[in-house]
């Protein structure tokens, strides 16, 4: 018997007005798993993450985090439950400094010492950030911003990290670095990652499992290796 999955999604449905963006999506993510959510533009990938993190209201269905129902709690409470969403583009606050951005991620933590320890860990993980702590985030490059966004999410000490297109607008080499870092995080602290990607090939190369969305429905799920090998799949939905 497998252990309880860390994230379970049951029949999740979300809509923008009359348009259904997610239709009865089911998925389970095991602890320490890295899974990819793939699909064309408008397939519902970002909506799925927004609904998981409470930015978008679910019309129906449930989201369970280690068995606890988190479907209806407000977005800012998700952090307390250990689920952190890094939105598309990172959501870095450009007018604050790098350090202030990082501090935002740990704001809700009570202990000053615990926050300081987190901060030290995060800058350890992202050396480029350490050199730029007191600079405004507006001066960072795209890759550094993505690192800052992920670093800020890690400040909250998440168990599940939702990443929306971390490779958007980044050079392949930088994308590679970020993907490697995700693998490292999984190995180091048992972090579970749900990765939304346009870049299906790079996403499938580091994930163990993939979900393919089309028009708001999960049309296929399988191990990343088999998804990569399935020619029909690749042509129909993944475009390579």
């Amino acid at each position, binding site marked *: 018997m497998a252990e309880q999955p860390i994230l379970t999604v049951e029949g999740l449905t979300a809509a923008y007005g009359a348009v259904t963006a997610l239709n009865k999506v089911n998925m389970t993510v095991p602890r320490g798993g890295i899974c990819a959510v793939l699909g064309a533009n408008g397939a519902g990938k970002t909506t799925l993450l927004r609904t998981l*993190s409470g*930015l978008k209201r679910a019309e129906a269905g449930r989201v369970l985090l280690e068995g606890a129902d988190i479907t209806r709690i*407000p*977005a*800012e409470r*998700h*952090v*307390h439950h250990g689920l*952190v*969403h*890094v*939105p598309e583009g*990172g*959501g*870095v*606050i*450009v*007018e*604050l400094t790098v350090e*202030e951005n990082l*501090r*935002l*991620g740990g*704001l*809700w933590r009570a202990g000053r010492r615990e926050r300081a320890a987190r901060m030290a860990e995060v800058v350890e993980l992202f050396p480029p950030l350490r050199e730029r702590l007191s600079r405004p985030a507006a001066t960072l490059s795209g890759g550094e911003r993505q690192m800052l966004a992920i670093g*800020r999410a890690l400040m*909250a000490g998440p168990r599940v990290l939702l990443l929306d297109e971390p490779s958007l607008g980044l050079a392949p080499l930088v994308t590679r670095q970020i993907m490697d870092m995700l693998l490292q995080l999984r190995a180091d602290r048992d972090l579970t990652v749900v990765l939304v990607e346009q870049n299906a090939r790079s996403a499938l190369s580091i994930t163990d499992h993939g979900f393919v969305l089309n028009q708001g429905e999960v049309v296929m799920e399988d191990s990343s290796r088999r998804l990569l090998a399935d020619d029909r799949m690749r042509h129909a939905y993944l475009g390579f």
Partner: protein
Amino acid sequence: MVSLSDHESTSRDKQPESTAPAPTVGDRWRALPALVRFPLAALAAFAAILALTSVTGPTGDLRIGSVGYYMLAIAGLQLLIGYSGQISLGHGAFMFIGAYTMALLVLNQPALPLWLNMIITVVLSCTAGVLVGAATARLHGPYLAGATLALAVGLPALTVRYPELLGGSNGLAFSTRGAPASLAGVITNTQWQAAAVWGTTLIGLVVLATISAGRLGRRMRALRDDEAAAGLAGIPVGRTKVIAFVISAGAGGLAGACQAYLLGTATPSSFTVTLSLSLLAALVLGGLGSMWGAFFGAVALVYVEVWGEELAHALALDSNVANNLPIVFFGVLLILVILVWPRGLHGMASSLADLVRRGR
């Protein structure tokens, strides 16, 4: 290509670094914690105001006092607009609440000391801020502006609705105790009043500056930039917005109380929509995003009008023209400053300071 003059300026830049490795007075000042720095700065400002009012006459004292309470109201608006990114076109309504609270307290409870009146005013206007803030927390941009505008238009009309209590369109007039008897020969009544207003203002400013430099200020700036990202980082968006509104309403109410105290009246005609819009214009003119902007805005708000009137008087202009001259002045100043220094008078001052520093 490095031209000769460029070369000169860079070598000049480097010199102070090599000759003065020790931290300057300014650096040491900035290294002080906010809780020490802001009260010290306020004490210095208070001493400066005392010195200033000792050389000005009663009219001058009144104007200095006016700069004080406008500054407090604009600083409150700064926290709301410049930090938390919410707009309010109705801050005059909170000044109205503060002024009438002060007037009613003085008229009905003459025994209460001034400081207690001020505290009651802050509590009441913060309560009003909770109600308005909670109702408008879901509104953005133009919708929020519209809702607050309605407040500024509607609230002063209460005076006409309840003429027995609020004095109708003539408002409430009262007399305040001047300088205490023990100080009778030392300072005049108007000096005392200006000092009381500035004392209140500076306490309010220390509170506002400490908040905006701290954790709450950082939360506000985060949600101003990106509400969704701030929420995802664990910041309670709705609550932080309401808190910003409440603090800013408290500052507005306190400013209104100071105004009523200084002028000895509270009339509905002082709290029209024009006042709310002037506060906003003064904030933009002074500079968004820094508490200094409030100071420059308040000075401009008071003295542009004074100079406009004096000029009109000196030129013996027709009263139709004379009455509108200050408004024209303010408008032209606003347009020019924003065109040249989009960050307002504060932006102008800091870029001038940079020039001076580089010139040395």
